[in-house]
């Protein structure tokens, strides 16, 4: 049996850090050592920030975003065009679209996609909330910005079916060549989609 080199508190810190995405046991050990070495400058403030976030973080009752206030910062922003809702799979997608800064719209986070293999059905997603938002009125366009995967597109079609008969324009993101993408390395499906969606110069 291997000898212990640290106390149980530090071992627990390492075990918990190893569960963070991007960190394995080895990198968690390095991160823990760094934190312990910088106890006052880093470990203390980080623990305080995490405790504060743990106390305050909540899911937005309107869009499903994660924030410390409810409704979230995005939903309470009066400058946003609330007649356009961008539907995303996850909060990380919302952040990515916000980084792009292309639309000043409201969002709706589904919390995943329909996935039979993972046992994720319509009731496991925030679809009813979306239908309710559209039914409440004032929504002109719904942009379904889910991943270009079969599961993502199944979810998109399911949402479209649920909104059948409602006065709302439903659009989805274009599929095609990414910036910096070389045609030689693209799969046939993406190339075909890009050719079909070609534009005049």
């Amino acid at each position, binding site marked *: 049996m291997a000898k212990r080199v640290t106390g149980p508190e530090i071992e627990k810190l390492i075990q918990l850090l190893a569960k963070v995405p991007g960190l394995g046991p080895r990198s968690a050990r390095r991160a823990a050592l760094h934190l312990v070495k910088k106890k006052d400058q880093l470990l203390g403030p980080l623990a305080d920030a995490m405790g504060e976030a743990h106390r305050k973080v909540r899911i937005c009752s309107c869009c499903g975003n994660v924030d410390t206030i409810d409704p979230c910062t995005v939903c309470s922003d009066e400058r946003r065009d609330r007649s356009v809702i961008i539907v995303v799979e996850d909060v990380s997608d919302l952040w990515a679209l916000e980084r792009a800064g292309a639309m000043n719209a409201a969002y709706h986070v589904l919390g995943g996609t329909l*996935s039979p*293999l993972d046992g994720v059905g319509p009731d496991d997603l925030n679809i009813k909330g979306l239908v309710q938002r559209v039914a409440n009125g004032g929504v002109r366009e719904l942009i379904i910005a889910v991943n270009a*995967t*079969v599961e993502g597109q199944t979810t998109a*079609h399911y949402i479209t*079916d649920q909104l059948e008969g409602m006065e709302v324009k439903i659009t989805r993101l274009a599929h095609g060549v990414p910036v910096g993408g070389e045609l030689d390395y693209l*799969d046939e*499906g993406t190339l075909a989609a890009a050719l079909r969606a070609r534009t005049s110069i």
Partner: protein
Amino acid sequence: MSVTERRHSAASRLSSQHSLIRFRPRVYAISMQWSDQAIILGIRRHGESSAIVEVMSAAHGRHLGMVRSGRSRIMQPVLQPGNSVEVTWRARLDEHMGEFRIEPVELRAARLMETATSVYGIQALGALLRLLPERDPHPHLYEALTVIVDHLADPADAGELFVRFELAVLNDLGFGLDLTECVATGARTELVYVSPKSGRAVCRAAGERYADRMLALPEFLSAQTRRAADHDSLAAAFRLTAFFLNRHVYEPRGLDVSSARDGFVHAALKALKSHPSAA
């Protein structure tokens, strides 16, 4: 121990190591490996970069395996439901999940994403195949799958092929319907009903008295006709297969009909209603 004895002992040790070295490739040789044509049915995340992929293979049935770096930018377009691939499965023991090495053959997922019938269709087909036991070969279902995935965008073709696929799955599960002759009279013509009790066809004359309790047998499913499916006959066919799938498979197993099947049925019938010429 004399020098000679020590030499002898070292030589025998080396010789035993050699025998181990010779033995090692044999151990690897008996590890499990096969290659096969397959169609991807589903993908599940595994860790941060890998994926667990479910395929329907030609000779090894529905099979799962892990694909290392399956969530990389190169592999993600390949690991989409509906894509045809060449798969090599490898594991140390047969009962292990094992690893897949996957080479693309035909990437049709992007095409499948374009219409509701095709995107729901591939998911519904996957859900149907999940009713079968894992690693149980069903080569004729694989053949049928290769045909149907190329016709999913056409609602009439897709609907008819899907119903036939459901009947084939029911048959492989041991609950096949006999739609070739009348259960009461043995007649092979005018077959318009299916008995909900026996799952066998009933001719018009014998079934008329019990018509309210009978299930309709659409003309395109009868062996005597080559007429294409239209909206009403397809709706009746979906009701027919749903009835027997519910009774024999979903209810006994405590399962719900997949939402993908509902979506597919809705999309196919809607497309046929708005464009009857598609039939």
